[in-house]
């Protein structure tokens, strides 16, 4: 970016963020987050309320800087060579999600330390886990503990299934 562009952007940012008296937060984190992530657009009234509240624009900026709203998907892979033992869990490469396998069930767990954890617990988007072939392993929403459980949908056991399906998987949010 040219210095002139940086200068212009700073000027525009300073104008948008200039404080006004009696300001307050006019949109919730969930509403702002869904708009930033492109899931639910703001209505005309909400856009006007945001534009008139520098404090809410500051909150908007903070959410963008934190990256909490940017989460769309996390991917992982089957790491260990097949040792013959049953697969008990898989963790995404970013470390924010674990898939647990037990007794014919699969449980998706969001780690509390994930930067987007609070946001996802508030928003409860529909989540999907897919394997390397694109087949749906599970579909659901997190409960208040940050977990989602369903029956293992395939005939073969998890270790064998993921090996046959490219040894990778992904957790992703579906658009609302």
């Amino acid at each position, binding site marked *: 970016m040219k210095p002139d562009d940086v*200068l212009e952007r*700073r000027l*525009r940012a300073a*104008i948008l963020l200039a404080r006004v008296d009696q300001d307050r937060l006019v949109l919730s984190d969930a509403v702002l987050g869904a708009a930033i992530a492109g899931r639910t657009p703001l209505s005309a009234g909400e856009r006007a309320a*945001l534009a008139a509240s520098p404090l809410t624009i500051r909150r908007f900026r903070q959410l963008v800087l934190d990256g909490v709203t940017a989460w769309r998907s996390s991917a992982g892979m089957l790491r260990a060579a097949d040792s013959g033992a049953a697969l008990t869990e898989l963790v995404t490469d970013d470390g924010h999600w674990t898939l647990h396998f037990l007794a014919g069930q699969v449980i998706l767990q969001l780690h509390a330390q994930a930067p987007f954890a609070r946001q996802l617990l508030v928003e409860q988007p529909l989540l999907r886990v897919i394997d390397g072939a694109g087949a749906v392993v599970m579909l659901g929403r997190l409960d208040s503990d940050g977990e989602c459980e369903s029956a293992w949908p395939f005939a073969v056991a998890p270790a064998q299934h993921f090996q046959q399906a490219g040894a990778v998987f992904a957790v992703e949010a579906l658009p609302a």
Partner: protein
Amino acid sequence: MRLPGTRFQEHGWEQVRKLLGQCSLTALTTGLLDDYVEAMSASLQRTGSRFDTPANSYGDTVRDLALTLLFELQARPRDWDAFIATLPADAGEALFRKKCNDMYATLRDKVDSDNYQAACGRPCSPNRIYAYRMLDTAYHEIARLCADWRGHAAQVGAILGRDIDAAPIEARQLQSIAGCRPEWILRWSAACAGPLDTRSKRFDALKDNPAKIGAMLQEIAEYEAISSNRDADWRLDSGAATDWLDDYWRVLAAPEESAPGPDRILEAHQEAIDLAWEAPAAALVEDDLAIDVGASVSLPPGFIQMARLAEDPGSWAARMMQEDGLPVRLAVYAKLTGPDDEVYPDAWRDPATGALPTMQQLALLAGVSLPTLRKRRDAAIARLTTAARP
């Protein structure tokens, strides 16, 4: 005390307050906010290096925080008017410093309550920040007494609610504010006619509410724990990262199909503790004194030509302020993004200071009086604001 987003609540505040009071003694000459801000800005930049020590755990120096608060004052002319309105014409130094102190003390809580809301998305008021600080101070006082329980057995007994004849186990367990129980705060205040037991209504919302006190103590503790090893992080106002602007413009652009249902706009959320206190409203002071522009412009010859060459005529700002002339445009930059942003071209800077020219220098360059330059600057800012906020 640290809370999300706050900058002015730690140990260095005393120094910041003193520096602002000291510089204000000579900077307040006319009663006009613009005069005061310009004189203060120059005065704060001239002070010695002993004000370059950190005043909070983010590494902001005493001088940084004083300049930041001065910058915030610019945006709150009502606070300034209230200050001027209650300042007696013949105020001595002690009274002047006290009034000055009150203004900045109020302002820091306003700014930090805004910062808190932006940082964590929860509503907050200046009075709530004040209440957090009162509880933090009370905890430190209780911890001090407990640490020396032999010397203060009666007081420690009153706080813990039982007679003390051996080392109280609570005192040994009191490692942080997380271990401080709300009942102790209530009993401590009752025993010493403390902040919860005065006639002031400021903390009425906490007086019979240990659950609320407990929740606030826990919040301070949790944030101090997670922020204790955090690196300096001034991104809130650094302006360095403006990527969020693209997200903002995208979100504000009308979507092809709008969201169904009613607008999801939050109600104003105020609890008793947020309402307890409001700064007194004051009459507006119109004090349009003629200013003596005595200072000479010591800018190098040809400054204006060189500065114009360094400007991008196609930029949004240049186009929006095409009619205003370069001195007005530089005055706008100085007010909105500060006198010394590293992005400014060298040709815009006064070689003597390394910063943009002062308002007086710009007024002389423009061939107008200082009040006229300010009016043109503020009119240009109003135009930019209208254009930037659809």
